[in-house]
């Protein structure tokens, strides 16, 4: 297997304001994200040779790509819609990268967009899957609440200790989100606020759960060899990983609810391609899937940032805070941007891209000398995970 490392570069990105965008439909969000990316790349829509696009919740039969081809006026070019739970944005990016890397296209548009606030209820709703009974009452907080329960049990954390541990993640992400104008939520919260908030799915309270937001993000990809024609500071794709596990975690024989193989495998694929041996030391900035604070806790360990069972120590020491050894979710993460599903993978990638360029626009938020960054999504029952590693310099590491 070849590596994707340094074959594709990102020359422009866009990201909408996230939030309750009552003013914007899916089409408006796509236009907002795509036109910022065009401008950032210094290109025109007619330069786009192909488009990969991810969205999840559009509920009707046969929407395909037509509802975005129209608003964006993408005349006569191939468009592909991808969907794979919370990894959808990453999946659009991954497939688009391959289209460029194989030499088929010289410039492609990647879009991840989601309009959640047209459903009339908060959250993603209840019920998943193809069976009318098996997951009929499954919810996202419920699934990740089960992850938290087992993590606490395995490592002997009392519910109070466990809630305080994950609560600190919410405090951190809200602090960062306060510094990020495009985030949905800008409020800072205290640990007491987090731990005493109403329960959504025990042990997860309101502040352990990401918001329910509309948003979109976009990227323009070109072959790495052509990147500097467009700008001086292109960002290079270093590694792309994606993996699935074969059954719902609830039904998986002998599963310990800790070692999600989809997360482990997808990150090891990407680390392998990028040449990362020690993620804790080598990665400068990470955007990980904090759909719930318990998810971020587990990801610290599965992605190799913390030793197994010891993320709590790193949380306590501020290792993942701005100014820490490895800042995680420097933009506030899903906690503050919400989780418009198809958009999230690309929104995270946008943050990594801007940070690597030194354009975080907030001195307090800007990670100094960041060379290597990772964005990561994890979703479904959960059962799917994806990773994109970006770097500032060709050949590094």
């Amino acid at each position, binding site marked *: 297997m070849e590596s994707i490392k340094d074959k594709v570069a990102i020359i422009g990105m866009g990201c909408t304001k996230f939030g309750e965008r009552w003013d914007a439909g899916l089409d408006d969000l796509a236009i907002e994200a795509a036109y910022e990316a065009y401008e950032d790349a210094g290109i025109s829509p007619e330069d786009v040779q192909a488009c990969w696009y991810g969205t999840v919740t559009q509920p009707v039969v046969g929407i395909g790509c037509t509802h975005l081809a129209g608003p964006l006026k993408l005349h006569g070019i191939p468009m592909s819609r991808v969907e794979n739970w919370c990894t959808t944005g990453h999946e659009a990016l991954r497939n688009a990268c391959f289209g460029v890397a194989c030499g088929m296209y010289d410039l492609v548009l990647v879009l991840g967009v989601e309009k959640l606030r047209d459903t009339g*209820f908060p959250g993603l709703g209840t019920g998943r899957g193809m069976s*009318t009974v098996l997951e009929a009452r*499954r919810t996202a907080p419920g699934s990740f609440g089960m992850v938290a329960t087992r993590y606490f049990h395995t490592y002997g954390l009392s519910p109070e200790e466990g809630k305080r541990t994950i609560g600190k993640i919410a405090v951190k992400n809200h602090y960062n989100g306060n510094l990020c104008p495009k985030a949905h939520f800008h409020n800072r919260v205290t640990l007491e606020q987090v731990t005493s908030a109403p329960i959504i799915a*025990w042990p997860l309270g309101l502040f352990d759960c990401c918001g329910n937001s509309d948003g979109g993000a976009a990227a323009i990809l070109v072959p790495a060899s052509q990147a500097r024609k467009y700008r001086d500071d292109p960002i290079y794709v270093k590694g792309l990983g994606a993996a699935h596990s074969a*059954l719902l975690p609830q039904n*998986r024989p002998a599963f310990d609810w800790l070692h999600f193989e989809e997360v482990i495998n997808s990150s090891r694929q990407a680390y392998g391609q990028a040449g990362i041996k020690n993620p804790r030391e080598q990665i400068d900035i990470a955007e990980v899937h904090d759909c719930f604070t318990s998810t971020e806790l587990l990801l610290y360990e599965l992605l190799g940032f913390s030793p197994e069972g010891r993320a709590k120590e790193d949380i306590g020491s501020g290792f993942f805070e701005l100014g820490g050894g490895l800042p995680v979710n420097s933009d506030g993460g899903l906690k503050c941007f919400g989780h418009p599903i198809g958009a999230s993978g690309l929104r995270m990638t946008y943050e990594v891209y801007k940070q690597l360029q030194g354009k975080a626009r907030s001195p307090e938020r800007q990670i100094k000398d960041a060379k290597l960054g990772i964005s990561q999504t994890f979703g479904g029952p959960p059962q799917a995970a994806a990773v994109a590693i970006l770097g500032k310099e060709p050949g590094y590491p």
Partner: protein
Amino acid sequence: MAGIISYGAYIPLWRLARDTIAEAWGSGSIRGERSVANNDEDTITMASEAAIDCLAGLKREEIDGLYFASTTSPYKEKECSTLVAMAADLRPEIITADFANSLRAATEAFRAALDAVASGSASQVLVTASDCRIGYPRSNYEQTFGDAAAALLISNTDKPAVIVEGSYSLSNELYDVWRLDKDIYVQSWEDRFIIEHGYTENMEKAIAGLLQKKALSVQDINKAVIYAPTLRAQQKLARRLGFDVKVQLQDLLISSVGITGCAHALLMLVAALEEAKAGDKILVASYGSGCDAFLLSVTEEIEKGKDNRRGVKGYLDSKRPLPSYTKYLSYRGLLDPQPGEPFRLFPAATTSWRERNWAIRMHSSRCKNCGTVTFPIERICYNCRSKDNFEEVRLSDKKARVFTFTLDHLAGRSDDPTIPQIGAEFDYENTRAYLLMTDCDPSDVTVDMPVEMTFRRLYEGAGMYNYFWKCRPVR
């Protein structure tokens, strides 16, 4: 000879104090409590529980018939016995029948089962009876009714636990209690008329007729299992017949369960059999547009399998108080709860049919190559990828424990807003299953908590009811 070889019962966990009903209405209470089926229970699920209780420790493949008796079947058109038989994991080559409309439906089914095994058209027939009748708000019936199910296994064998020595039936056309096809609530004529000229007159005739036919006197009867709409009616009848009310009369279960419709005579019989000794003579009489009376004699086989079954005794003691009258109204569908988030996938006849072996029979797949067990059934083994190389293993009668859980505040409806979602691990091959937990106080749920399986109605959609298994704390 035709007789009973096993028995089972089911009483819902929830009990409503009659004082709570009376307080809600500012009316009088008849004291005691009544059972209330949960919002995910109906007569099909309760009959399935009683059937499974009755079959504990027995070979289900030897059953060749299942009858379902109820006046409150969830379906007007669609057989229910077939669904109960499938939830009880009986084989498909069996006789089934639904007995309906009459408070005597259960004893009619009992008689039909006796006739079927006596004639040789079947060798073992499982009779289930289940009712969930609703009295008008503030009516006496609202207090006196209860929800429950019972089951009897009938066989033609040399060694039945209970021999049916004789019977006596009467048909009587009378409007005493009834429901039109569109009615929710039980209608009735004036008590003074229907108790005297309906219940008492006919029951007296049938019981006296049976004793005369068998040349027995009331003193020869060890237990009289006499159905009645009220305690007063039962005791008055028993006294008129000459029974010693304190010694011979089987408890009507009015103070603890309530009158459970057509299931009630069988429920009382199950309670009587739990205490019966070899040689006992038991009289059973049920009422509803006439009477069915049976004379039973108990053999030494009665001791067999006693520990396997939960029965009336087991389910009576296992209870939780239903905290409010409004919750009762909501559980019975008389008060609409705010529905919660919609179900996205409506039941489909096709998917229900394809999924029947795991969704209704609760079969898992056990790989014949490596032994890995998965639920639901997987055609390709999770562990070794052997294709279509598995045997089906029933999980519904296996114990499990909570491996992980969440208390989900989004998945419920307003009368039960918190839904425990469980990653369960079975005692069998560490098999896992994703199940909702019912009949519990969510705050009691812990990792490693022991649970058992229970067949429930999951939701209504596309004009059908959709059933699936849940777990509950071991009762």
